[in-house]
């Protein structure tokens, strides 16, 4: 071996060792020793109650509970472009839940997405938002969860292909995308706005669904609230690119989040129905803060939307009927009696000219709602609509969708509707197969 070769080999070795050391430093997190599960009566009831409200704002039960399963016991399959991840058990069971977690481990998980054992958690758990939650709120959440009924339940193993099943890689993702201190604050906007910013960007993690994601599954910072995907639903844009025919105001948003519907916009359904169901137990002040902040950052509608929004409020003409007689007939026979009836929301149907689902470029929400309807929620004055999956066939659904889009959306036809209808029907059918016992009334069916 010549001298030069020896030097190169030496440099390569040093670089490799240094690289490995750096990667280790980035990826390695210490294990935190387990504790005996603290007794529920060691927590301050006021803090537990605060934690309950916070858990509702964080929508924790939606991912950490399967339909028909025990609350917070985990096991919900979350489909992602990278594979299926199963939510964890966050009841205080020592073996399968977080019973052995000291408070500092819980705070660390919320802050930086690391489990008690030092393993990196997948960002399906939205710690990119939760990192903004205050330590006091983390403690209240901990107190709430540690005083729930412990449930012994091990979630199924994640279904991720190599190398994504190699958790140290998540450390690299965090280097790129985990940023603490992202919450905007502006003293001039008042306490309500700032409270809303804290909730929306933090615990409520609205962007997790409403912001589109990049190829690595991170929210695109330059497209905040531009609309995203969840299950087979489109989470509407909440920024100035919103397709809502009538612009959202803070009051409208407050009423919508409080009651699950608004006469200018229609009803919350799909995953948003679960969000609204959870918010039902949250104090008015926090719901209003969320509404004030969201309405403010949504801004004025994008220029091309404005004339449309104005036109929609005046026009209900039906030129589309000639172009699509079959769709027009289905609408007249099936939909009009409620959507053009005189019953007020939530029992009557919204004027479809106001429907974001029909104005939106993504037909999935409209198809889901036609096929699955909106189930009544026990004990609430909630919106209702029968589902038509059993009585309307695919061709009829396509004809109806084209008609609604042309007449009420006043926009070019949706493309590839046949496939969208087949997909929506597959999801609806799968929900019938998967469902088990009816659960507590707040958990609506997941179509």
């Amino acid at each position, binding site marked *: 071996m010549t001298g030069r070769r020896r030097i190169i080999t030496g440099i390569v070795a040093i670089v490799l060792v240094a690289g490995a050391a750096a990667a280790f430093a980035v990826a390695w997190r210490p294990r935190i020793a387990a504790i005996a599960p603290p007794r529920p009566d060691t927590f301050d009831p006021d803090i537990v109650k605060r934690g309950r409200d916070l858990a509702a704002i964080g929508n924790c039960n939606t991912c950490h509970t399967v339909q028909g399963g025990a609350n917070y016991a985990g096991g919900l399959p979350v489909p992602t472009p990278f594979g299926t991840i199963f939510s964890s058990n966050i009841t205080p069971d020592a073996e399968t839940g977080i019973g052995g977690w000291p408070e500092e481990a819980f705070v660390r998980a919320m802050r930086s997405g690391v489990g008690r054992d030092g393993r990196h958690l997948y960002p399906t758990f939205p710690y990119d938002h939760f990192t903004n939650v205050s330590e006091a709120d983390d403690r209240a959440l901990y107190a709430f969860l540690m005083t729930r009924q412990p449930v012994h339940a091990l979630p199924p193993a994640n279904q991720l292909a190599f190398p994504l099943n190699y958790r140290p890689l998540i450390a690299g993702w965090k280097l790129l995308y985990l940023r603490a201190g992202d919450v905007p604050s502006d003293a001039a906007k008042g306490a309500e706005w700032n409270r809303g910013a804290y909730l929306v960007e933090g615990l409520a993690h609205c962007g997790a669904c409403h912001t589109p994601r990049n190829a690595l599954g991170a929210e695109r910072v330059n497209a905040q609230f531009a609309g995203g995907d969840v299950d087979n639903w489109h989470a509407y844009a909440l920024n100035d690119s919103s397709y809502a025919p009538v612009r959202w105001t803070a009051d409208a948003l407050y009423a919508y989040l409080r009651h699950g519907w608004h006469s200018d916009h229609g009803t919350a359904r799909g995953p948003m129905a679960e969000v609204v169901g959870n918010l039902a137990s949250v104090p008015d002040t926090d719901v209003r803060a969320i509404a004030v902040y969201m309405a403010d950052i949504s801004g004025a509608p994008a220029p091309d939307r404005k004339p449309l929004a104005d036109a929609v409020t005046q026009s209900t003409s039906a030129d589309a009927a000639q172009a699509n007689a079959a769709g027009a007939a289905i609408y007249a026979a*099936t939909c009009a009696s409620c959507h053009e009836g005189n019953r007020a929301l939530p029992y009557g149907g919204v004027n479809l000219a106001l429907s974001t689902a029909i104005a939106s470029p993504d037909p999935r929400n409209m198809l889901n709602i036609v096929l699955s309807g909106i189930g009544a929620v026990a004990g609430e004055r909630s919106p209702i*609509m029968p589902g038509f999956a059993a009585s309307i066939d695919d061709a009829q659904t396509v004809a109806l969708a084209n008609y609604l889009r042309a007449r009420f959306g006043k926009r070019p036809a949706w493309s590839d509707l046949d496939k969208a209808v087949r997909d929506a029907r597959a999801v609806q059918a799968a929900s019938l197969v998967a469902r088990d016992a009816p659960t507590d009334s707040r958990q609506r069916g997941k179509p």
Partner: protein
Amino acid sequence: MTMVKVNGRDHQVDADPDTPLLYVLRDDLALNAAKFGCGLGQCGACTVIVDGKAVLSCVTPLLLVEGKQVTTLEGLGTVAAPAPIQRAFMEEQAAQCGYCIAGMMMRAQALLMRNPKPSDAQIRAELEPHLCRCGTHMRILRAVHRAARLMDTVDAASDRSIR
């Protein structure tokens, strides 16, 4: 005129396309098993089977069922020869006032056609859209299980299909 197949027979119906199937069945065809409850698709009393699936006939316009196979309770069995689902409901005495029961039986029948051995939880989930104010729920559950067993016996096996 609209053609619908009800309980195996073709009918030409002279009604507007937006007429609810329930009205066609009761008023035009004198098939009174399906009941008017809420008229909003929220109580299940009007349930019939269309092409093998349970459908709320009060919110299903005639237009959507043109050319399809509609089955009502009358199409399952008769007083002299009740279908398994009807026998089971009688044997369990699962009706009190009975107003909701025709709809319950139709959805249970649709369930048993696609799942011959449903679990308790599956029956509960399936019948969730149906309201009963009398409170025979536990008997209804037992009746559906009994119907599943009846359909499994040799003499009743042919009755799993519907006309």
